[in-house]
């Protein structure tokens, strides 16, 4: 059974108490038992450093948005959490990413199991060329969990707010759905295996505004059971849908670094850093 720590809602004063640099922000947020803790994470593609010494804490059962101009390493950071960057030749990471207290790179961590516990939804919906049912069942079949699979698939589709639209056509190809539906199918597919964290890499950038809002609503519902980290280009989306925001930007060495992080409301209305203020007011990016 999936066990959850009782969620202690962080008080405003705890996260709001800011210090000038982004690094000490992480420590104050961690007092609420974060799901993920990044410490001094740097990422390289070959000789090129894409991310420089990022430290942040991802609070449990909240939506955390990573925002910033394009090219500043947000996706790289996200993909390092579930070690999808392992698939990129020449990729290297320094620093530590701790998931539930254990480093994702430690010997005790099985990367296959890590990816089951930390799910991912991609920018462009990528359902398999299989039926809707088989798409959602894919992860369950990987684990050999075929008993009661029908009920599990239905549950996931309900949780992804897609069940009513597809319940009569589960054997239709997943690719026959609209863009927004396909993305919700991918979300259902990801949550079918009961991850603890869901990583979303610009999940709405390929979708129309209506579908985008649907998915944002879905995110608000999902945090009851999951922790969500979302990379987004869309500032309004971050302001609308997230609880906690991390603002990254590109330094002169073209590596991304954290400028400021904090409660979403504060970041957008009362940022501490000038750079943050410039970005959220649209002066650059």
């Amino acid at each position, binding site marked *: 059974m999936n066990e959850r720590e009782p969620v202690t809602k962080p008080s405003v004063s705890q996260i709001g108490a800011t210090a000038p640099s982004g690094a000490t922000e992480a420590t104050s947020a961690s007092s609420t038992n974060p799901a993920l803790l990044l410490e001094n994470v740097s990422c390289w593609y070959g000789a090129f450093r894409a991310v420089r010494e990022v430290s942040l804490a991802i609070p449990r059962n909240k939506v955390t948005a990573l925002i910033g101009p394009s090219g500043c390493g947000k996706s790289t950071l996200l993909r390092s959490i579930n070690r*999808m960057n392992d698939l990129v030749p020449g990729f290297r990471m320094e620093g530590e990413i701790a998931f539930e207290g254990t480093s994702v790179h430690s010997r005790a961590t099985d990367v*296959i199991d890590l*990816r089951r516990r930390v799910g991912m939804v991609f920018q462009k919906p990528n359902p398999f060329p*299989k039926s809707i049912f088989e798409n959602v069942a894919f992860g369950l079949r990987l684990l050999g969990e075929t008993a009661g699979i029908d009920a599990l698939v239905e549950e996931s589709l309900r949780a992804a707010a897609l069940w009513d639209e597809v319940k009569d056509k589960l054997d239709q190809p997943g690719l026959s759905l609209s863009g927004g539906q396909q993305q919700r199918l991918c979300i259902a*597919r990801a949550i079918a295996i009961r991850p603890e964290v869901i990583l979303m890499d610009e999940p709405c950038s390929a979708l129309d505004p209506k579908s985008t809002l649907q998915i944002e609503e879905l995110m608000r519902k999902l945090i009851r059971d999951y922790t969500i980290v979302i990379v987004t280009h869309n500032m309004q989306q971050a302001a609308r849908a997230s609880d906690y925001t991390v603002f990254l930007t590109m330094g002169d060495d073209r590596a991304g670094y954290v400028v400021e992080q904090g409660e979403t409301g504060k970041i957008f209305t009362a940022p501490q850093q000038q750079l943050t203020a410039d970005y959220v007011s649209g002066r650059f990016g």
Partner: protein
Amino acid sequence: MSTQTTTRRKVANALFGLLAFFAIFASLVTLVALLIDVVARGGSSVDLQFFTSAPSRIPAKAGILPALVGTLWVTTLVAIMTFPIGVAAAIYLEEYAGRGRWSRLLRINISNLAGVPSIVYGIFGLALFVRLLGLGRTVFAAALTLSLLILPVVIISSMEAIRAVPPSQREAAYALGATRWQMVRRALLPAAAPGILTGIVLAVGRAVGETAPLILIGAVTFVTFVPVNPFEDKYTVLPIQIFNWAGRPQAAFQEISAAAILVLLVLMFLLNLVAIILRARLSRTIQW
């Protein structure tokens, strides 16, 4: 620029267009001429008796039964053997091998093998399968030899089919916690299946028409019985039967040779049709 020069240039342009069109037209005419000749010469000889008789010294009584059965035997065995090995090799080269020197060598090697004349495969099959391994002049040795012949083609076309599957599909599977083999078996292969199967059917179609390698490894040219045991019996195949009859001076033999060619072409056409249908049906659900 004077109008004279411009006219000259325009005329040259038109002439060239005409010449190029003629080249295409000539190809078309040749194909049609070939088909007409075969049909005209051999069409009347294709009847039930043709399909059910054995070759004979009398053209009117001769038939292609042993040759047809031999072709079916060899083709089936070749399909069964090349499918797993060809696809496995393609999976390895596309998904498991790196981009280093060793894997580049493997890839170049496969391309080279695709360009080796088929008769050389026959020589190799003779030395390895018939003599060294003592398999003798059997259907089994023929199938092994032809499998080696079309294996590079199967591998290359399977690799292309696998490469056509977008990386996002692989990522989706990995992100759900699949191991590499799970990703290959459950996400990649089902998506690449149309291309892979089409490639195999087309390659097998090529093997059906091969003559030279089979002469080398001992397909006999005058066989009156039907092979039953692929590990023991002597055999012949359609192309060799065609060759045997075509080489005889009498016009009547030319006719039945043409008839046998018709059967062979129809067989190959059917295989191509199967390939096209397979691709169309299987790729209906796959629209990237």
